[in-house]
């Protein structure tokens, strides 16, 4: 459907303006990562580094950035895989057998919207009793659990659209119960599963609140490392900070482009297809 030319004259002007406004802040961060200290603390601001170098990247990497990146990568990858591995059979069960009824499915979805801060306090008390603060296990448990609702709900919607006859046919051909899921359903989910996996990865990669509360600065992730830069002892280290910000967003943006086909559907929880 299209509505012709609502804003015929202004249209190109507005579109270009929006593009510029969208790109400008990110361009600034990326450029700042290549400036030297004199340039990123210069009045008036200098846009383009006169002698671009990777010095900020090296400084950031040596000064905690490497640990943050490795922590984030390990925690995010493991949690994403676990959420998908647990989420796919659950979604299948909810879709095919309506397990627990509609209200059970709605309950699972509702968890997605609840405020993380409400869980963070009791979980932090619980984790300190079980020595899970500052551990990979603690954060992986939290991230897997809190992303399950999203994974289950969205995949349930996708599985609903795969005809049940296919399952029956597979069974007649001698497919076992569980084989149906990973031999028939998973391949048919295809791009939908890719989008859900990518979005789950991005959600976990960006998560800040739990990562902040469930560590005492030993197992810190990239977002926590970025926030730590703002302590007064550190001063204005914008170059290295921008370098860390840059390497934390570029992979996410590239992944988002790959998964963009079903992005609207996933982000509206199936309300818009």
């Amino acid at each position, binding site marked *: 459907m299209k509505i012709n030319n609502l804003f015929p004259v202004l249209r190109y002007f507005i*579109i270009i303006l929006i593009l510029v406004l969208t790109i400008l802040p990110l361009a600034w961060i990326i450029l700042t990562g290549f400036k030297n200290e004199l340039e990123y603390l210069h009045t008036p601001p200098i846009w383009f580094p006169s002698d671009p170098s990777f010095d900020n990247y090296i400084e950031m990497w040596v000064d905690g950035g490497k640990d943050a990146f490795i922590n984030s990568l390990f925690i995010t990858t493991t949690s994403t895989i676990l959420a998908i591995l647990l989420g796919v059979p659950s979604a299948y069960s909810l879709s095919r057998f309506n397990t627990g009824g509609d209200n059970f499915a709605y309950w699972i979805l509702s968890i997605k919207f609840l405020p*993380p801060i409400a869980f963070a306090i009791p979980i932090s008390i619980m984790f300190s009793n079980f020595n899970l603060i500052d551990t990979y296990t603690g954060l992986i448990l939290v991230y897997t659990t809190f992303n399950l609702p999203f994974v289950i709900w969205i995949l349930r919607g996708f599985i609903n659209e795969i005809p049940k006859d296919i399952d029956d046919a597979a069974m007649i051909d001698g497919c076992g119960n569980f084989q149906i899921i990973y031999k028939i359903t998973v391949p048919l989910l295809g791009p939908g599963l890719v989008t859900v996996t990518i979005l789950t990865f991005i959600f976990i990669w960006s998560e800040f609140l739990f990562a902040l509360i469930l560590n005492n600065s030993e197992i810190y992730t990239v977002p926590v490392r970025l926030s730590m830069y703002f302590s007064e002892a550190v001063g204005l280290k914008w170059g290295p900070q921008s370098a860390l910000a840059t390497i934390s967003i570029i992979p996410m943006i590239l992944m988002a482009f790959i998964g963009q086909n079903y992005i609207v559907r996933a*982000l509206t929880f199936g309300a818009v297809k």
Partner: protein
Amino acid sequence: MKDFNVYYKWYLVIPSIILLLLLTVYPILDALYTSMHQYDAMIAEKPFIWFDNYKDLIFEDERYQNALYVTLLFEVITISIQMVLGLFLAFLFSGDFKFKKIITSIYLVPMMVSPVVVGFTARIAFTNDFGFVPQIINIVLQEEIFIPWLSNGFWAKVVIILADTWQWTPFVFLIIFSGIMSLPIEPIESARVDGANSWQIALYIVLPQLRYILLVTFLIRALDLLKLFDVILLTTRAGPGIQTETISVYIYNLAFKFWSMGNATAASFILLIIITIFTSTLIKFITGYENK
């Protein structure tokens, strides 16, 4: 599929259920229990006090009232701006133009950036002397004006609203845009035959059909904004003073700065109730739409 073991469907969900019970249901019950006790991390005795923590917060704690006000303000203003802009852009993009697909893709980038990076960017962008926003404003206006972006309560709120708008308008746009694209073509064609112009079609034919999508978008954004935390902590640290302190940030401070767990859990429980009301409405719309 009668051959299935009746328990099979439950085996598939049990691992997920155990995790959800352990890390979402149990913590909520634990928080409810804590919120009814005088719970100070420094004092061993924790007497049961019914709803005194709740009463304290609602009737006496001015900082809590401030946090409610700040959150509500961000909620109303930010959503209004984003819905209007998103709708405007969706209509703008519904026509044909060159490079539309690429431009739409680029426009989606902000939502993929972590809120922490958005907050960090806003912080350095709006800093006077070194930030590029004051510089650009001076260039556009052709005169030196000084705006106390991060040191004044009003302007600090503006910065937060701008940061959130930069990040989430694309989301609103994208949903409405997909909504417009999925509408049936016939009513629009026949209206055009009847001589309606583009504006009339947009207002009287397209807009009413979008009301479901607009509501869902509104509710999703409202829920996110009730939880606003990351950007605040990175950009203004709730400052100046407590002028940008949202509910989530205040609860965080109560729990992890003042170690006042009783009040913190009471405040988070109130937030939980508000969010549950929004959520059940949202789920009704999502599932209603699904079944249509």
